[in-house]
C-alpha cells in the first residue's frame, strides 16, 4: 500500500516537473514570438516611413513643378491671347456687306419632362436722351425705355405646351415698371392653337398678336433693337396690334411655302389702336383720339370687328439664302365717328444669309424691311378746343434694318426709319403724326443663348421736336425652357 502511495506521490511529482518543463518551453516560444512581432513591426514602420518619405519627396517635386507649370501656363495664356486676338479681329468680312437677323442667336429652348415650357425673360434698359421725357415724343413703343435713367419694360413669363392631342396652349404675362417704377401687369397673349385640323388648316383663338407683317407678332426679346419701329407704333399704337379674336391659316399645297391668314378681332381697346379705341382722356376727362372726342359705338355686327388678312411666301434662293415676303392688311371701324373706318396695308421682306459652316448660327447677314400705309377716316368734332372737320388722315412709313452677326455671339446692326402723313387739322399736337426720321446703329453681345447686352444709339429728327439723340444700354436674361422660335 505504502509503495503504491509512494509511486503515486513520485508520479505526481513527475507530473509537476513535467509541467514545469513545459512552462519553460512555452516562455521561450512566447519570447521568440515577441521578437518576431517586434521585428515585423520594425519592418513595417520602416516600410511606412519609406513610403511617406517618397510621397513627401514626390509632393515636394510636384509642388515645385506646379509652380513652374503655373508660370508656364501664364506665359502660354498671354501668348495665346496675343495669337488669337488679332486673328479674330482680322476675320474676313462676309461676301455681303449688309444684312442681319436677331432671332437666330436666341433660338432657345430646353424642354424637359414637364407638361409645359416655362420661362422668365427680363429686359432692362439704362440710358438717356437729349429730350427731358423721351416717352412723350421719341420712344412711343410700350416696351421702349420709358424715361432717362433706368427702365424695366418687359419682364415676361412665357408658358407653352401641348394641351391635349388637339391643342397647343401659349400664354405671355408681362410685368413692367411704369415711370414711377410701379408695377404694371398685362396679359399680352393667351391663346390655343389647333394641331389636327384637316386640309392644311390651322386655327388659333384667344388674345394674341395679329399676323401683320414681320415684327408685330414677335416678342421684344426677338427684336434686334431696343425699341419698336416708329411706323409700327403709329399704325398699331404702343402695344402692337393684338386683341382677343380668332385666326385661321391655310398652308397652300404648293412646292414653295405660301400661307394665307385671316384674323378676326373684337377690335376694342388701346391694343387695337386705330380701331375701336377710345383714346386717352383730356384735362376735362373726355376721351380723345387724333384730337376728336371718341364715342363708344360698341359692336353692332360683324362689320364692326377688325379683319386682318395676310399672305406670306418664302423662297430658298440658295442653300444659304432665304427670303420671306408678305403682304398684310387690317380693316375695321374707328371710334372718332359713327361710320368712320380704318384701313392699314403693309408689305414686309426678310432676307437672311447664313454661312454654310455656321458655328452656333454665326456668321450671318440679314435684312428686314416693312412699309405700312394707313387710311384713317376721322370724324368731325366741332366742340373740340380747336374745331376738327371730317378728314381722311393718311399715314405712311417704313423701316429697314440690316444685321451682321460678324462672329459668334456678336451682332452689329443699323436701322433707318421714316414716317410721314398728309396734313391733318390736329397735327401740331399729335405725337403719332407728322414727319419723322430715325437712324439707329446697334451692337449686341450674347454671352450665351440666354443673355444679351445691347448698346444702341438713336438719332431722331421730327417736325415737332427737331433733333434728338439717345443712347440706350440693354440687358436681357432668360431663365427656364423657352419654346423654339419661328424663322
Amino acid at each position, binding site marked *: 500500500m505504502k509503495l503504491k502511495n509512494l509511486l503515486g506521490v513520485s508520479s505526481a511529482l513527475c507530473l509537476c516537473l513535467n509541467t514545469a518543463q513545459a512552462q519553460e518551453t512555452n516562455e521561450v516560444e512566447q519570447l521568440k514570438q515577441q521578437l518576431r512581432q517586434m521585428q515585423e513591426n520594425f519592418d513595417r514602420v520602416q516600410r511606412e516611413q519609406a513610403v511617406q518619405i517618397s510621397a513627401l519627396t514626390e509632393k515636394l517635386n510636384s509642388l515645385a513643378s506646379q509652380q513652374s507649370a503655373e508660370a508656364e501656363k501664364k506665359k502660354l495664356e498671354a501668348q495665346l491671347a496675343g495669337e*488669337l486676338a488679332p486673328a479674330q479681329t482680322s476675320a474676313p468680312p462676309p461676301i455681303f456687306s449688309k444684312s442681319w437677323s436677331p432671332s*437666330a442667336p436666341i433660338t432657345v429652348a430646353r424642354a424637359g419632362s414637364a407638361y409645359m415650357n416655362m420661362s422668365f425673360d427680363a429686359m432692362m434698359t439704362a440710358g438717356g436722351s437729349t429730350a427731358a421725357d423721351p416717352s412723350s415724343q421719341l420712344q412711343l413703343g410700350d416696351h421702349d425705355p420709358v424715361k432717362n435713367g433706368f427702365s424695366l419694360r418687359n419682364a415676361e413669363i412665357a408658358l407653352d405646351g401641348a394641351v391635349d392631342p388637339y391643342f397647343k396652349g401659349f400664354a405671355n404675362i408681362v410685368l413692367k415698371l411704369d415711370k414711377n417704377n410701379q408695377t404694371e401687369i398685362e396679359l399680352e397673349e393667351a391663346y390655343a392653337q389647333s394641331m389636327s385640323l384637316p386640309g*392644311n388648316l390651322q386655327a388659333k383663338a384667344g388674345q394674341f398678336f395679329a399676323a401683320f407683317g414681320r415684327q408685330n407678332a414677335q416678342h421684344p426679346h426677338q427684336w434686334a433693337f431696343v425699341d419698336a419701329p416708329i411706323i409700327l407704333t403709329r399704325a398699331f399704337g404702343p402695344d402692337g396690334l393684338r386683341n382677343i379674336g380668332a385666326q385661321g391659316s391655310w398652308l397652300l399645297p404648293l412646292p*414653295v411655302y405660301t*400661307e394665307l391668314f385671316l384674323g378676326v378681332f373684337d377690335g376694342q381697346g388701346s391694343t387695337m389702336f386705330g380701331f375701336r379705341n377710345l383714346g386717352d382722356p383730356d384735362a376735362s376727362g373726355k376721351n380723345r383720339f387724333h384730337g376728336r372726342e371718341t364715342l363708344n359705338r360698341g359692336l353692332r355686327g360683324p362689320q364692326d370687328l377688325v379683319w386682318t388678312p395676310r399672305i406670306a411666301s418664302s423662297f430658298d434662293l440658295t442653300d444659304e439664302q432665304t427670303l420671306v415676303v408678305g403682304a398684310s392688311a387690317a380693316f375695321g371701324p374707328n371710334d372718332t365717328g359713327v361710320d368712320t373706318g380704318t384701313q392699314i396695308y403693309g408689305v414686309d421682306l426678310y432676307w437672311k444669309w447664313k454661312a*454654310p459652316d455656321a458655328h452656333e448660327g454665326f456668321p450671318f447677314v440679314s435684312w428686314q424691311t416693312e412699309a405700312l400705309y394707313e387710311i384713317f377716316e376721322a370724324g368731325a368734332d366741332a366742340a373740340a378746343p380747336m374745331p376738327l372737320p371730317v378728314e381722311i388722315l393718311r399715314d405712311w412709313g417704313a423701316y429697314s434694318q440690316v444685321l451682321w452677326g460678324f462672329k459668334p455671339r456678336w451682332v452689329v446692326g443699323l436701322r433707318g426709319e421714316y414716317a410721314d402723313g398728309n396734313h391733318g387739322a390736329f397735327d401740331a399736337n399729335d405725337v403719332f403724326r407728322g414727319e419723322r426720321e430715325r437712324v439707329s446703329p446697334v451692337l449686341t453681345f450674347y454671352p450665351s443663348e440666354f443673355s444679351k447686352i445691347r448698346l444702341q444709339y438713336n438719332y431722331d429728327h421730327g417736325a415737332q421736336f427737331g433733333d434728338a439723340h439717345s443712347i440706350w444700354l440693354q440687358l436681357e436674361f432668360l431663365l427656364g425652357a423657352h419654346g423654339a422660335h419661328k424663322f
Partner: protein
Amino acid sequence: MKNIILTLLAALLFAVNAQAKLNVVATTVDLASIAKEIGGDKITLATLAKPTEDPHFVDAKPSFIVKLNHADVVIEGGAELEIGWLPALLDQSRNEKIVAGAPGHVNCSKGVPLLDVPATLDRSRGDIHAAGNPHFAISPVNGKIIAQNIADAFAENDPANAEAYRANLKIFTTALDAKLAAWQQALAPFKGRSIVAYHDSWPYFARDFGLKIELFLEPKPGIPPSPAHLAEVILKMKEENARVIIVDPYLNRRTADTVAREAGATVVPVTQFPGGLKGTEGGYIQLEDYLVNSLAAALAEKK
C-alpha cells in the same frame, strides 16, 4: 396631241408611283443616310440640316414647313439635339402624322443609353442637355439601334413593305457589324490614347473604340475657348501625350490650329455627318471609315 396625252399619263403614273413611296424627312444627314439604307427605293427622302451645319443651330426655314407638311415619317435624333428649331416647324407643319408621339415621328435616341446625363440642371455649367449628350449617332454601336428604330417605324407606317425594310435592316446591321470589328481592330493599337475635341460631341465614339476624348477646347459646352482655358488644355495635352485635336467643320479651326502648334499636336478635321467633309458623302459607313482611318493615321504618326 397623242404625245401630250402619253406624257400626261406618264406624269400621272409617276405621281401615283411617287405617292406610293413613303415620304421621309430626316433632320440630319447621318440619320438620312441610315434611313436610305433601310428604306432603299421604297422611300423618298429629304434632309433638313446641312452636313456642315451645327445641328443645334439650324434656321427653322419656311421651306422646311412644306417638306414636313408632305412627310409620312419624320426622323429626328432627339435628346434635345434639334430642340431649338424642330418643335416650331412641327407646330406649323399641320401634319398630324409626324407630331411628337405619333407613329410617323421617329425619335432615334429611343433605346440608346445616353451618356453625360446631368444630375442637376444648371446653366452656369454651360449649355447642358437634360437628357444626356445628344451626339450619339456617330457611334456605330448606336448606329445599329438607330437603324432598328427607323426600320420599326418604316414597317409600322408602310406595312406592305415591312419585309423589305427588315431585310435591309439585316443587311445594314451585318455590314456594320463586320465593319465595326475592322474599325475596332484598326484603332486597337491606340487604346486609351487621349484625343482633344473642340466640343463634347464624341463620348460615344470614344467609348466604342477605347479612346479617351475628355479634353475640350471649350471650357463649358457652348462657351467659347478662353486663352486661360486653352493654356490649361495645352499643359494637360503635354501631360497626357494627347497629340491629336479633332474639329468639326462648323467649329473654329483657327483656335484648334493655334493649340496644335503650341502642343505639338496635329488637327484632324472630322464630321458627324456624311458630306460634312470631302470623302464622306457616301453615307454612314463611309463616314465611319473616314473617321477611323484618319484618326488611326494621325495617332500612328503622332506617337
